[in-house]
């Protein structure tokens, strides 16, 4: 028999033995007793011994029975396992017997672990989960690349050239519900098909048929999962499209869409508008580096073919698709994960302190166990088991708290994070989150359990047993350990508080930023201007006039505007030239923000006119082309000159249908913050809606919804029904979507930052509380220990004031050391927050000073309570105190 087989058999026997261990114990005892008895009888009969002598002789001949039993157990079962089981049961009993301590420890841990679980489940969904496509790591976004940054938008000609360059191409224009996608789109994203077919390359050619592929959701929702749907014609934007296929149920596009139409990109297009998003799937053998090199090559080829259509420092590159989705939120999430990690460490320190205090109460128990022969490892493992039981219970509770808490938080404060779904619906308890929580719990147990366990077993047995019971206080070393823990807590709490203070300062700064417009009492809504009548500007202008008329007549309405976009939501940029100045002009930059707005836009948003005039209804298709610019644009391109009267050539270099006649600047308006409150105003040119080139109108209306903004004299929501009704009637029955007050729009623009601020503030508050409890616990314990000493001092004439000061000072000393360490650490760590803060330096001295003072004040308060107790000690009672 091989050695291995023999071991295996022994193992199997052990497993059996473990399961039947009590029965076997009894059988073995019986066997041995029988044997001893038979031996003894033999001695009596053969040698005439007395019963006692015979029994003794029998035992001698038999050998050490206890040792034998131990040997047997070792052989027959897993001694360690049995001990472990014993430890668990013992731990359960111990913790059950001190419910106050256990509950405190478990709740502390549950809150800390719960917070970690919550943040991790977000990190998991947003950063760790692969994209929901086959082999997601092969997907790349094709971007325009500039030395400063990359842009995920390219023009049709670039797409056509890049598509030929060995990479499978797919693309997705920015659209709300429909996606115009090339035939390669479905290959790239591995879209499964349920019914019918996908469109072919032939159908994707310019002038190809009007066909459509629809989502599974639309098929089930709108068409009742009709299996004969394929072949039917539906009207989209007034045009007939034949449905040729239904996608599989699992397919999720980003942005979510229900209908896919062939892009039918024209290879001869001269359109320079960068409104396509291109993505590609790399072949299995291609590395990211190779793909990037290929893109660079493709961009060089494009430059050779169309030297005028590319900026001098423009190139192209490939970026992992996942980065485009999450790179914006990654820093904030990692900072939150770090912050919540600190909370966990502080909680660990607290529980460790609790355990240390408890260990002194249990010293006699442990000493007795040790004197009965329990090895040091055995006792450490016993104590660690207790810690483990605490942390696992805390972890289980934390999982629940974290998950429920997170969803509650998201319900109260909806935040638009990518990939978490509506109200965090995509945040699920998957195996990774469960594993993370388990690991955090185990790690926590070791972290807070090991120090007390080791220090508890380091003690001198004899000294402990000789001491007089309950009041046997912790030795010097233990207090040192506990002080160290409190100092660490203080330092970590300071870091978190500094982080929170920086976020709160940012929050305030953003609230006090002047956005350049007044969003109060403004109602906004979106409308997709779909249909052939909106392919020309005249159709849009016509609708605009009617809406202005009808909505303007609603009582309570002050002004009505239509535009491409609302303030704070960004918009398109277009190339332009200043007539009479060559490209040699030093600050000529090529592209600037461009907005088509109606005459009352500036009135609705209270954007001031600084010079000249704003648009009037007379600035229509028949009158001279005019434009407005904002102050930032005036400053950048005219410095001290007067821009009024100068002429702009907008759309310069675009496809002919986008080219514009020279426009005269008739006024300068105030700046608005258009790309987030934390970004300085950018130059903007405004064009009257009625004068927009037809080509741009057609493109805009195909891609993005038009917006309406109405200034009201009363609360804007009170007029929703009437305004909505009038807008619909005036537009010929088009649907209105996304009705919000402008204040909501502003709120949404900072929602993510506010969410981060709230979370970090919560974490910091928890940290502050835990740290205060830590200081309080240590000082209260120290005072209790020194009651006798304090009593003597007072008996000898020390006044209460002095005693109080002594205790507070001891607590404060720890706090101050912790604060000092924390300040240094925070200086190193807050750098990582640079991208999250606004109008405050990450090393802002006032923030650091305020936080240090706050933390010290809280610590002194926490120390003051035990100090007061100390000063009230009655010397007579204290001296008798045992």
């Amino acid at each position, binding site marked *: *028999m091989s050695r291995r087989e023999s071991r295996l*058999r022994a193992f199997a026997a052990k497993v059996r033995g473990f399961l039947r261990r009590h029965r076997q114990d009894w059988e073995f005892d019986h066997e041995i007793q*029988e*044997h001893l008895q038979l*031996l003894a009888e033999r001695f009596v009969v053969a040698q005439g011994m007395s019963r006692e002598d015979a029994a003794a002789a029998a035992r001698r001949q*038999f050998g050490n*029975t206890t040792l034998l039993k131990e040997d047997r157990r070792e052989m027959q079962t897993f001694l360690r396992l049995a001990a472990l089981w014993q430890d668990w049961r013992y731990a359960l009993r111990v913790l059950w017997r001190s419910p106050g301590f256990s509950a405190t420890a478990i709740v502390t841990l549950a809150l800390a672990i719960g917070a970690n679980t919550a943040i991790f489940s977000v990190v998991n969904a947003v950063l760790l989960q692969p994209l929901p496509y086959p082999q997601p790591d092969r997907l790349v976004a094709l971007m325009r690349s500039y030395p400063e940054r990359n842009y995920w938008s390219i023009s049709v000609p670039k797409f056509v050239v890049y598509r030929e360059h060995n990479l499978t191409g797919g693309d997705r224009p920015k659209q709300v519900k429909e996606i115009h996608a090339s035939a390669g789109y479905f290959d790239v994203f591995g879209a499964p098909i349920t019914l019918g077919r996908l469109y072919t390359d032939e159908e994707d050619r310019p002038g190809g048929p009007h066909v459509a592929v629809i989502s599974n959701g639309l098929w089930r929702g709108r068409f009742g999962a009709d299996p004969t749907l394929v072949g039917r014609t539906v009207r989209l934007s007034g045009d007939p499209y034949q449905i040729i296929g239904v996608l599989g149920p699992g397919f999720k596009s980003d942005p979510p869409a229900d209908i896919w139409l062939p892009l039918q990109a024209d290879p001869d297009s001269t359109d320079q508008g960068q409104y396509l998003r291109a993505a590609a799937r790399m072949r299995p053998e291609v590395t990211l580096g190779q793909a990037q090199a290929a893109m660079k090559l493709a961009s060089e080829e494009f430059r050779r073919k169309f030297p005028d259509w590319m900026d001098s420092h423009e190139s192209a590159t490939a970026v992992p698709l996942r980065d485009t989705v999450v790179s914006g939120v990654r820093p904030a999430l990692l900072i939150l994960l770090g912050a919540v990690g600190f909370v966990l460490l502080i909680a660990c320190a607290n529980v460790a302190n609790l355990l240390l205090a408890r260990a002194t109460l249990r010293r006699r128990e442990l000493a007795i166990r040790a004197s009965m022969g329990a090895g040091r490892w055995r006792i450490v493992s016993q104590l660690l088991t207790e810690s483990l039981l605490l942390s696992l219970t805390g972890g289980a509770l934390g999982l629940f708290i974290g998950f429920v808490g997170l969803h509650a938080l998201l319900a109260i404060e909806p935040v638009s994070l990518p990939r978490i779904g509506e109200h965090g619906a995509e945040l699920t308890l998957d195996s990774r989150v469960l594993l993370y929580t388990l690991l955090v719990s185990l790690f926590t147990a070791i972290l807070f359990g090991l120090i007390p366990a080791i220090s508890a077993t380091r003690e001198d047995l004899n000294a402990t047993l000789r001491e007089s019971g309950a009041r046997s206080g912790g030795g010097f070393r233990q207090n040192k350990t506990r002080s160290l823990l409190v100092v660490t807590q203080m330092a970590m709490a300071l870091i978190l508080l500094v982080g929170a203070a920086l976020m709160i300062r940012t929050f305030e700064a953003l609230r006090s930023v002047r956005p350049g417009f007044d969003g109060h009492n403004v109602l906004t809504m979106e409308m997709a201007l779909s249909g052939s009548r909106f392919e020309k500007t005249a159709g849009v202008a016509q609708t605009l006039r009617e809406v202005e008329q009808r909505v303007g007549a609603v009582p309570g309405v002050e002004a009505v505007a239509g535009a491409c976009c609302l303030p704070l939501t960004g918009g398109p940029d277009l190339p332009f030239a200043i007539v009479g100045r060559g490209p040699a002009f030093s600050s000529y930059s090529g592209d600037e923000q461009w907005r088509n707005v109606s005459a009352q836009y500036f009135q609705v948003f209270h954007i001031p006119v600084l010079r000249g005039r704003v648009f009037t209804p007379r600035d229509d298709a028949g009158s001279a082309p005019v434009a407005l610019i904002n102050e930032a644009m005036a400053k950048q391109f005219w410095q001290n000159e007067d821009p009024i009267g100068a002429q702009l050539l907008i759309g310069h270099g675009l496809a002919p249908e986008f080219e514009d006649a020279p426009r005269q600047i008739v006024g300068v308006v105030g700046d608005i913050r258009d790309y987030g409150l934390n970004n300085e105003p950018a130059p903007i040119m405004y064009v009257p809606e009625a004068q927009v080139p037809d080509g741009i109108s057609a493109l805009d209306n195909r891609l993005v919804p038009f917006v309406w903004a109405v200034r009201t004299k009363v609360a804007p929501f009170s007029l929703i029904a009437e305004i909505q009704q009038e807008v619909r009637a005036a537009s010929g029955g088009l649907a209105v979507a996304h009705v919000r007050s402008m204040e909501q729009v502003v709120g949404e623009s900072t929602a993510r930052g506010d969410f981060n601020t709230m979370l970090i503030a919560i974490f910091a508050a928890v940290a502050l509380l835990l740290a205060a409890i830590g200081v309080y616990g240590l000082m209260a314990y120290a005072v209790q220990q020194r009651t006798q000493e304090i009593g003597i001092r007072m008996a000898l004439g020390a006044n209460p004031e002095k005693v109080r000061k002594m205790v507070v000072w001891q607590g404060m000393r720890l706090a101050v050391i912790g604060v000092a360490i924390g300040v240094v650490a925070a200086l190193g760590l807050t750098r990582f927050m640079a991208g999250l803060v606004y109008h405050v330096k990450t090393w802002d001295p006032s923030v650091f000073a305020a936080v240090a003072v706050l933390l010290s004040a809280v610590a002194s308060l926490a120390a003051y309570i035990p100090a007061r107790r100390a000063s009230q000690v009655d010397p007579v009672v204290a001296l008798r105190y045992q």
Partner: protein
Amino acid sequence: MDVKKSEVLQGTLDLMILKTLEALGPLHGFGIARRIEQVSRDVLQLNEGTVYTSLLRLQQQGWITAEWGTSENNRKAKFYSITKRGQKQLELETKNWERISGVIGRVLRLEAERES
């Protein structure tokens, strides 16, 4: 050194028990101890408790089985008997033992000759 010595002894005891069970059929622990005492007389001093350790080991390897039965004096006792696999093992071990003891014997004789 101690460990190695006991291993040799353990193996020896295992072999003796197997042989005993093969020769005498099912026996309880006490009976095995008596038989070994009988055979070895004064040559082998042994703590009878170690018989039980050995019995456990043999059981774990599946070379013997145990069954509850009634002893000569009408008491409940565990009876051990050798299994088929145990018999094979015994054969193997016996051969091994003979070979090794032969070798050792030769070596010892050689040493003795050189010394003389």
